[in-house]
């Protein structure tokens, strides 16, 4: 007896073959070019992630113009603190060199972020003062030069 193949089977096989082929064809066009080059991701995304522009220029860029501040800072306890910690993002200023493009902080609040008393700060990590007792009403920079805090202004 001849081997019997019910008519449903070849018809369904064709339908599924068409479906799977269409899927593979679509997939062929939709998968991004660099996908899978290094791993299960779009390799081009690595380049995308390098693209954003920087806002913080790093202190080397500052010292190109402000050599004097570097020298001053080097002599006192703020020597390890980078310029942009207090002055904020500097890249705009580096490019334009306009004074309004850099932030000049002042006020007890600002200095207090580091120097206000808090039980969580180790004494060895930062010098702390009690903002409620220490020369109340005065701005810190009236006495202290922020670049050289212990060079007191008279």
């Amino acid at each position, binding site marked *: 007896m001849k081997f*019997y193949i*019910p*008519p*449903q*089977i070849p*018809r*369904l096989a064709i*339908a*599924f073959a068409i*479906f799977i082929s269409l*899927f593979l064809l*679509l*997939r062929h066009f*939709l*998968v*991004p070019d660099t*996908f*899978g080059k290094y791993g*299960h991701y779009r390799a081009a995304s690595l380049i995308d992630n390098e693209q954003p522009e920087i806002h913080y220029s790093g202190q080397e860029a500052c010292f190109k113009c402000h050599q004097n501040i570097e020298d001053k800072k080097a002599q006192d306890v703020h020597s390890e603190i980078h310029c942009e910690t207090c002055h904020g993002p500097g890249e705009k200023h580096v490019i334009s060199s306009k004074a309004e493009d850099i932030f000049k902080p002042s006020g007890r609040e600002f200095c207090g972020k580091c120097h206000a008393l808090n039980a969580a700060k180790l004494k060895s990590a930062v010098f702390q003062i009690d903002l409620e007792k220490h020369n109340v009403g005065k701005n810190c920079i009236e006495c202290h030069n922020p670049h050289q805090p212990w060079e007191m202004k008279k």
Partner: protein
Amino acid sequence: MDPHFQHLYDILAHSQGYIFPNEIDLQWGILIVVYPFITGLVAGAFILASLERVFKVKILKPTYQIALLTALSFLLVATMPLISHLSQPQRAYEIMITPHSSSAMAIFGFVYLWYLMVVLLLEIWFDYRHSMVVWSNEKTGIMKWVYKVLTLGVSDISPRTLRWDRKLGYIITVVGIPSAFILHGYVGFIFGSIKANPWWSTPLMPIIFLFSAMVSGISMVMLIYMIISYFRKKSIELNVLDSIGKFLFFVLILDFTLEGLDQIQRIYEAEESFEIIKLLVSSKLYLTLFVSQGLIGTIIPLITLAFLQFYKYQIKLKKTIYFIIGIFVLIGVYSMRWNVVIGGQLFSKSFSGFTSFKVGLIGLDGTLMAVFWILLPFAILAFLLWLLPPWKMIPEED
């Protein structure tokens, strides 16, 4: 202010204890509650249909096609809550073209396709092919061609070919049962595999999801059977309800046991996260867990069904009871999905505080959208019942 930010400030004001700042924005809303609920109905309805076929429970015959078509209508909508919840829905196709093999969500796409194409559509096709061929010969105009296309042009209705329809359909059903288990087990795995979340991360999660899926699917088919009979002005066969009720009773016991085991294990081991979870269930989830899921969705139906096994009631009263129990069980299972999905995000991964959840009415992930996705399958089912009416099928001759 941006309404989203305004919403987040409100939530922040209502948060308790300490939560990581990024956790204030609760990521998976009501649509992700609806998603496992709908998928569960699919798996449950299919398993009920398979019972009739594989285990030859003749009494369930009137619900066989209804269960299959219910499963199909819900399955067609199952992925929609997920897709409409994406913040970049136009990129959803990426799940199919570059599926990440280690991601439960990615593999779900293929499990879904397998289940839709190879199991449900094929089973329904084999089941209806004879009828569709006959209908295409009887009808005129466009419907003739619709049925012709649906048969894929296989118009052979010789006894030998029809025997093969049944044989192949049977094979598909046998393949279908594990497929249905995998389909919904996988939904459970999407949550159960997240080790960062102790409320989700349990190996029992897929099994619990599976059994609650069966509970909900059985109830849904029972309700739909009753509603269809009402609209067709046909009397509801009580022995059909009784045997569905019996299955519901047994599966409900299993479901209750499994969920109980999971919680007992959690309480006894009392790991790092125990305190925060204890607080969670006794405050934020109290109503939805103990009242909706536990009392309304499990205890009351269990007790009632147990009584129905032993005592005789008036037929009309019995039907009403079955109807109410069906609704109760669905409320319970929906609450279970809510408790898992929303509950798992209410407590901080710092285990030190809670965020809160307020569901919006409008918007892509609002209540209206969720209601729409729950109602849409019923519209599809109505259409399918019109296109492929089970009660007009050509009876099989053995």
